[in-house]
């Protein structure tokens, strides 16, 4: 086991995915979505990764660093993340890194370049996917670029010497896999909801270092090319077609619903 476990959590800033659909303004010509009136948050999937990291250092000792890549990253959003149990945060914040146009390949490249600049790590944790692009490609990308093993969909992580054992989610249970450290692991929500930071922890977080870099500050060798084109972006059309069952007495409506579903051979 490394003397002191060093973990980096990749945490993407996204518009609050719990916001109502009306707060996501879609411009089909520019093929982009602009959030309106909803705050930025850390992608909930990445919050699970942060929780996993905090649990690991509670058990084994060590430190957690947070890394975000994007445009107009909110210092207070990342401050709250530090307060959950991290030592510092690194934000690669650059107009060039607009999450609306950043693809998985570029994201993985910049995260990897930034991680190299940040130092040596035992474990790189990410969420299962980002809450905006929902792609789930970045963990494999970082692992490929940094030459590390990667395990996806971790429900739990145990450090054993210089290896980790990961319970990987399956539809009917889990499988246990082992990889040597350093490694990249993506986690599922089953690993645990993020804890709320105490007010005192938020105050203390303000004293912890928040490093800001531009894209040029971290850029390593090689410029990724666009492998995909986004040709269209549209809102799926739903055609309401609901047949409402009505009755004077509401419990009667419940019985009528049952009758209807059995008659129609739905149940």
């Amino acid at each position: 086991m490394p003397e002191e476990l060093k973990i980096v959590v990749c945490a993407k800033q996204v518009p609050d995915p719990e916001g109502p659909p009306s707060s996501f303004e879609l411009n089909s010509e520019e093929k982009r979505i602009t959030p309106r009136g909803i705050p930025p948050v850390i992608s909930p999937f990445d919050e699970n990764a942060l929780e996993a990291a905090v649990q690991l250092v509670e058990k084994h000792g060590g430190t957690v660093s947070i890394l975000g890549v994007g445009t107009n990253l909110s210092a207070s959003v990342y401050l709250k993340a530090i307060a959950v149990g991290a030592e510092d945060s690194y934000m690669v914040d650059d107009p060039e890194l607009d999450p609306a146009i950043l693809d998985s390949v570029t994201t993985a490249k910049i995260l990897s370049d930034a991680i190299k600049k940040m130092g040596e790590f035992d474990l790189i944790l990410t969420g299962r996917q980002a809450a905006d692009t929902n792609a789930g490609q970045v963990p494999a990308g970082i692992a490929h670029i940094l030459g590390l093993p990667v395990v996806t969909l971790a429900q739990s992580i145990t450090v054993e010497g210089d290896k980790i054992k990961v319970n990987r989610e399956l539809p009917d249970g889990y499988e246990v896999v082992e990889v040597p450290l350093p490694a990249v692991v993506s986690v599922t929500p089953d690993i645990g909801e993020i804890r709320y930071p105490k007010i005192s922890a938020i105050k203390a977080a303000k004293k912890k270092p928040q490093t800001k870099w531009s894209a040029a500050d971290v850029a390593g060798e090689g410029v990724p090319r666009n492998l995909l084109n986004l040709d269209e972006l549209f809102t799926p059309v739903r055609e309401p077609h609901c047949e409402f069952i009505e009755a004077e007495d509401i419990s009667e409506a419940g019985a009528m619903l049952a009758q209807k579903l059995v008659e129609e051979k739905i149940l």
Partner: protein
Amino acid sequence: MDGSNIISVVGEFAEDGSIAPVTLELLGIGRELAGGSGKQVAVVIAGPADESVTGNLIAQGADKVYVAESIERKYSPEGYVKMLDALCNQVKPGVLLIGHSPVGLDLAPRIAFDLNVGLVTDSIKVEWSGDKLKCYKQVYGGIAVAVYSFNTSPQIVSIRQRVGTPIARDDSRSGNVEKLDVDFDASAARYNWLEKVEEETTEIRLEDAEVIVAGGRGMGGGEEFKQLYELATVLNCAVGASRPPCDSGWIPSSRQVGITGKIVSPDVYIAFGISGATQHLTGMQDSKSIIAVNTDAEANIFQVADYGVVGDLKEIIPAFTNKLKELR
């Protein structure tokens, strides 16, 4: 060899050795994409070339079966990446179709980064636009759909399970079986699979359920969920939930339906007290029949429902359950 006319499916197997349903679905999609164009549908599999397997794959739509005998059939990331490397270097297929399954969602990004080519994950529809593939994918938890095309070859796409329809089995179909040479030293693998632990549960799993009864914030509390379990006993079906009941601890989070939980498409989905947040709708809107009960007639859930009742759950659920007991 120029394989740009080849659409290749990555074959997966169930634990009992049978061909995984998602592979049959992808063969169906491959056949649709091939149409009458003269394109060929291939499937690549790891492990022994037993005729029962290769024959089945051909009967289900494959024109070619590539067999990587040196790779163990049981999924290992490193072995399967080597197999696909060999396929893409030797056969050079124009399209690679992978299931968005526990195996495929792990494998697809690995091979895409390895080949440095584009990948669309969890696609819900693929079609041709000229000689290029267009892949539809839900983004922002289903609030929008993005359509992607590729600048690279092979065009790799992982497709959501149950999106494709297998073709009717046709034993008169013919096809070739070819060996694929893959150089892989399993002893050098860093990824070490140890064991599988099955979840001990007597409940029906959401992914397997033909019928799901689900509760939302409108259920009011954990006690009220007992009514749904009673209904589930009558219908012999699974119980699910939207996110709020899971966050409140009324029901375990393993029962959550939605983009942050399980994506399901049962024959029947009955939603009680679920308002219909986008991330929930995205997780269940492909169910064949949707029934919604809610106090709010304006709730989003009615946008996707086939049948609805507006009213108090406390009265409707017992009446609904009792009537079903009587009729079934």
